[in-house]
């Protein structure tokens, strides 16, 4: 969800030094994950030692999101948790990846938040909106405007780093902001009378969070990646089972260092997908319901916003075969 030119520069530098990691099978698979509920969920498998049980040698490395993509681009990781849009950005700047698993889609965590007096998207006409331009929140805003018969020209965009949006909204300098968790929740808490007027729950599939792996590693260690996916669905089951959900949330919350009660809210805005729920999204199609459609929209958006120049071959980035084989 969270990338910009800074990342591009980083990835470029990384790619410049990219020496393709050796395909030696003895090395453990290194997977970078970061602070997003759909990826924090991996922690449950790590804590429960299910990967060892499944007979696959993986190391999960905890990163800052941007740093994890840098490390992947530099060939230091074989897999990384990214959004489908960022997989394109990372690929366009040097490090191709294949998305083999969809962890979740944002289901309300990303929000357009109107300040006091803004009751709906239609009220935004002619208003100032704080948004980090070129990021997924920008994409969400465009979608909100489009569904309400407006375009970017009908509003005034103010470029604001996402983690500063709560303060900017509360200062009254803008009439609305676009942010994701935990910033969106902070803004709602901070600004009395503010409310979410459009969220990623209104457009499920706008942003998919995935496991992207390097094509070389996928070719060399396909069996191992299959095992990783199997563990993932064990984790999903553990989270969804009301008997074990409490334990799962506790593990996840401690990974990011917040109380479990607080973390529930973040998980609630994330639709973590079971295999049955995920498979339909892996079918080709247009629009946000399909990974292909959503990724195509992200590609168009990225090119339009000059995140990169050339459109990416979207189909080559998606490999549903592992999920289909489960």
């Amino acid at each position, binding site marked *: 969800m969270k990338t910009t030119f800074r990342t591009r520069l980083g990835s470029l530098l990384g790619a410049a030094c990219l020496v393709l990691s050796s395909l030696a099978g003895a090395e453990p698979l290194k997977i970078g994950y970061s602070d997003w509920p759909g990826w924090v969920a991996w922690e449950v498998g790590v804590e429960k030692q299910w990967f060892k049980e499944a007979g696959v040698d993986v190391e999960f*490395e905890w990163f*800052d999101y941007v*740093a994890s993509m840098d*490390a992947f681009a*530099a060939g*230091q*990781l074989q897999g990384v948790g990214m959004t489908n849009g960022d997989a394109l950005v990372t690929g366009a700047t040097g490090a191709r990846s294949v998305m083999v698993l969809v962890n979740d889609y944002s289901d309300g965590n990303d929000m357009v938040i109107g300040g006091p007096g803004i009751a709906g998207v239609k009220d935004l006409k002619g208003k100032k909106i704080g948004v980090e331009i070129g990021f997924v929140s920008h994409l969400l805003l465009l979608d909100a405007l489009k569904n309400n018969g407006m375009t970017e020209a009908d509003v005034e965009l103010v470029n604001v780093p996402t983690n500063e949006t709560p303060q900017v909204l509360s200062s009254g300098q803008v009439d609305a902001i676009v942010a994701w968790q935990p910033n969106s929740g902070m803004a709602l808490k901070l600004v*009395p009378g503010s409310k979410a007027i459009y969220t990623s729950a209104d457009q499920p599939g706008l942003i998919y969070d995935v496991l992207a792996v390097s094509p070389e590693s996928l070719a060399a260690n396909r069996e191992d990646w299959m095992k990783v996916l199997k563990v993932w669905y064990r984790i999903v089951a553990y989270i969804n089972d009301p008997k074990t959900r409490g334990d799962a949330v506790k*593990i996840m919350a*401690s990974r990011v260092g917040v109380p479990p009660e607080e973390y529930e809210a973040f998980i609630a805005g994330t639709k973590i997908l079971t295999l049955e729920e995920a498979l339909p999204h892996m079918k080709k199609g247009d629009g946000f319901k399909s990974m292909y459609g959503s990724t195509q929209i992200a590609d168009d958006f990225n090119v339009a916003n000059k995140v990169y120049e050339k459109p990416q071959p979207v189909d080559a980035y998606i490999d549903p075969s592992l999920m289909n084989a489960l």
Partner: protein
Amino acid sequence: MTQTLQWFAPRRQLAPRPRLVLGIMSFVLPLLIWSLVSYVPWIWHPLVEVTEPGSVSYFKAGQRVERELFAAETAKALEAGAPQPQGTPANPVYLPAPHEVLQAFYLAFTAEPERRNEKWLHESLADSIYVIFWGFVISSIIGLPLGILCGTYDVFSRLAEPFVEFFRYLPAPAFGALAVAILGIYQAPKIAIIVIGTLFQQILVISNTTRKLDPALLEAAQTLGARRLSLLFRVVVPGIITDVYKDMRILLGWAWTYLIVAELIGTSSGITWFITQQARYKNFDNVFAAIMIIGIIGLSTDLLLAWLGRRIFPWQRAEARA
């Protein structure tokens, strides 16, 4: 009376007792201000923490709202005869009260990790200190000799300093991705960032200190028969070493400031990453506790080094007393 006037005589050292008292005050005063702002309800406290939402639909218990808004809603409720909201004056979450920070400080060291591979706070601290230590050592291994050479011989100065002057303006964090690509994702790239952040300043600072050596000492040494290497090792090095030691103490402080960017590179670890993460979730009591830990570590290393310096350089110890 005259005594207090003397306190304001320029560059006059005070007697030991007032010095000690003032030194303690330098900590007590900020703490006092912080406590006043935190505990005295009519100082600052621009917000009201809602304890009872009453009839206001969007108020929730625990929410902090602006004072004016709270007053307006209370008035509205009063007019309508509906239940009034209740609340207490509060500061923004960014400024936790001293006791909250103290509690977080205590918990940080006593709360057991919840996951198998989660680290104790002191282990995170050890990671950070490891990064700082090696970053500073590596930087010094290169920077010290190079700085001294630049300050002593124009050849080295002309050869190195223009580039160093240029490079020191480049933001060290920008090399994060490159460092990860070359050095992997663990501690090595973090150490590299500390080195990049420290080294170039270090070369310039040390070479400037070296140039401040009284040239008459070099001349005197030459008339006593000192040549080339003995000039460097018997005069330049001992002549600047106390000032270099002071520089190094200051540079070590700079190295700490690079830690916060270094620890965002590669895998997330260490005390400053803890700060970043906790700030993201607005747990500012934890943030302040961690900031304080860094402050305590920094101050105590510096005091230790100052004490050690007085042991190592006896002529300087007596100088300070004289």
